[in-house]
């Protein structure tokens, strides 16, 4: 039984157990009812028969007293109306048979009975035997004997049994149907959960969720299961993000190490070469040449210093201890930056137009200054190769983002370089001074602010650098991005 049950699925276990319970209850109930019924029926037959015997015995007093066989036979013949009475005999007090009654098919079998004042009912296998005294004027004058068939009772027992079986069958079918139908209310949630957990286990897809269909304990289970999935999914995503970041920064570091060794080396080589020449020219007494060499050494050293400064700046981007972010009105900020760059603008003969619709962003003032200085210096250096050019700073506002642009009227950047220029030490024009770190710094700062930077440019049609800031709605409410 145990192993049988354990082999069944939850659904069939449920159905089996409920049907079993229903059947057990109905069997017990049926048995109790039928036993009661048969008992009652037996009692009622006995009552009926003994009443009949009493009436008949009372009625036959005169027949017995007068020894009227004719009358006695007539009386007993009235038993024709009671088919269950198979035989009846009227005895006189001295034990002689006064009259007899035999139902059809019965043979005369005169019973040996005691004639006394007691009435009795005894049951044999298939007959009830009734003995009743005939008493007249308190004197015993005879006795009545009746043999009653209990075929009727047997038929009733059989009928009851068949009826009981039919009812049981009906109950079993109904119980089976109802249980099968209702089990889904109880078990469907667990089936769903089971299927879901299987799917999750197979595919490691933690974005799946169970559907809550009821407000009972299953509902609570589903909710908790989903909450667990939420937590797992969150961790899963965080892990993926972290590992991506790690991968990215690893790559960056590799690249960084490579280019830094390469780019730092070139001024070093310059310094070494010209320092050697410088010594030779000093020995030769060639003052002019030695001054030139010393100048070159100085320039190379200066470039190295700039490079190191920029690398330092780059490494600082996004480091929490170095920055203090707050709401910054770019309109105000830009005025300061313009002042700083005024000398270079004048030198290049360029003009800077700052539109007045710049947004307020959440950032560190130093970061913002670096971004715009880098972009504007680039615009001056590469976009204002001849005087009279204009640099424009403006903005457009979208639903979730603020876009700020810096546009120049320079020669533009070929499309294939658009992605590369934001990488470290990528310089398109070696004739212009620079470290190759400016746009890398811009890109890194923007990412650190939760936004990004990109360029829109065509050869000969100037370049537009776009900065995308997340929109600030309520200060302090937005999440910290690092």
């Amino acid at each position: 039984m145990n192993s049988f049950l354990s082999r069944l699925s939850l659904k069939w276990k449920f159905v089996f157990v409920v049907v079993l319970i229903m059947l057990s209850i109905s069997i017990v109930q049926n048995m109790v009812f039928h036993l009661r019924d048969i008992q009652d029926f037996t009692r009622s037959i006995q009552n009926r028969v003994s009443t009949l015997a009493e009436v008949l015995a009372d009625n036959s007093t005169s027949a017995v007293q007068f020894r009227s066989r004719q009358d006695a036979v007539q009386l007993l013949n009235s038993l024709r109306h009671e088919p269950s009475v198979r035989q009846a005999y009227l005895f006189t007090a001295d034990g002689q048979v006064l009259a007899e009654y035999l139902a059809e098919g019965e043979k005369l079998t005169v019973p040996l009975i005691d004639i006394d004042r007691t009435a009795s009912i005894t049951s044999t296998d298939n007959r009830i035997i009734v003995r009743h005294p005939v008493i007249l004027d308190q004197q015993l004058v005879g006795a009545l004997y009746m043999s009653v068939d209990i075929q009727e009772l047997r038929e009733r027992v059989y009928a009851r049994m068949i009826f009981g079986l039919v009812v049981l069958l009906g109950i079993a079918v109904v119980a089976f149907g109802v249980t099968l139908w209702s089990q889904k209310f109880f078990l469907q949630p667990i089936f769903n959960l089971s299927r879901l957990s299987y799917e999750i286990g197979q595919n490691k897809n933690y974005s799946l969720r169970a559907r809550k269909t009821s407000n009972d304990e299953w509902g609570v289970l589903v909710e908790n299961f989903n909450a667990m999935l939420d937590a797992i999914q969150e961790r899963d995503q965080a892990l993926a993000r972290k590992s991506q970041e790690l991968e990215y920064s690893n790559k960056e570091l590799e690249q960084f190490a490579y280019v830094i060794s390469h780019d730092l080396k070139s001024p070093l080589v310059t310094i070494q070469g010209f320092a050697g020449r410088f010594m030779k020219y000093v020995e030769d007494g060639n003052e002019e040449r030695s001054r030139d060499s010393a100048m070159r050494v100085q320039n190379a050293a200066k470039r190295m210093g700039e490079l190191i400064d920029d690398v330092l700046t780059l490494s600082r981007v996004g480091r929490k201890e170095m920055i203090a972010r707050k709401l910054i009105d770019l309109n105000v900020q830009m005025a300061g930056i313009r002042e700083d760059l005024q000398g270079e603008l004048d030198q290049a003969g360029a003009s800077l137009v700052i539109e007045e619709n710049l947004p307020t962003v959440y950032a560190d003032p130093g970061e913002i200054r670096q971004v715009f200085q880098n972009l504007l210096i680039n615009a001056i250096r590469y976009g204002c190769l001849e005087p009279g050019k204009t640099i424009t700073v403006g903005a457009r506002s979208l639903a979730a983002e603020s876009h700020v642009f810096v546009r120049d009227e320079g020669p533009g950047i070929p499309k294939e370089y658009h992605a590369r220029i934001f990488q470290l030490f990528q310089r398109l024009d070696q004739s212009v001074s620079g470290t190759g770190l400016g746009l890398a710094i811009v890109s890194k700062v923007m990412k650190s602010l939760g936004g990004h930077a990109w360029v829109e440019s065509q050869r000969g049609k100037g370049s537009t650098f776009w900065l995308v800031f997340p929109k600030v709605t309520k200060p302090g409410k937005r999440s910290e991005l690092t």
Partner: protein
Amino acid sequence: MRRLLLQTMSFSRRRLFFPVCLLLTAGNLVAQTPVISPTIEYQVKASLVFNFLHFVEWPEDIFKNASDEITICMIGPNVYGRALKVLEGEVAQGKRLTVRLHTEGWFPALAETCRVAIFAEQTPEAAEETLPILADRSVLTIGETSTFLSDGGIIKFKIVNETVQFEINHAMAKRARLMVSSKLLRLATNVIDGN
């Protein structure tokens, strides 16, 4: 004789004498046992008289005391002989029976004390004279003459095929305020039930 009979019978009950008597009459209604002699005929009739007493009820005011007896009066010559005297001392309906013989003559006034009046076949004039007087007196009248019932008698014996049978004038019984059991009426060969 009674004692003798009681002794000869294996049954200890005193009363069982009567069923033995009746055994002889058992055929009277089924016409099986013929009446063979006048003695036996009157023995049968006497036991029938005794049996009648179990199925006839007198009005309640007749028996005032528990000790009241049922008096059986024989009017005319005692053709029953000893068979009637044997009833003396028997009990029916809880009352003792006494037998009184009026063989010499009959005075209607005596009817007050009779509960059963048996008229001998030999003195039909006594019956004719007395029956009208007894009609309202709650006396069970038993006779044998052919006109006994039409004269106002209640139970009449007759011999058919050598068996003793009886007829009942139920109308007269009712007039006399006697309750005759239907069980007895059932056994009568003829019941007169006038309105």
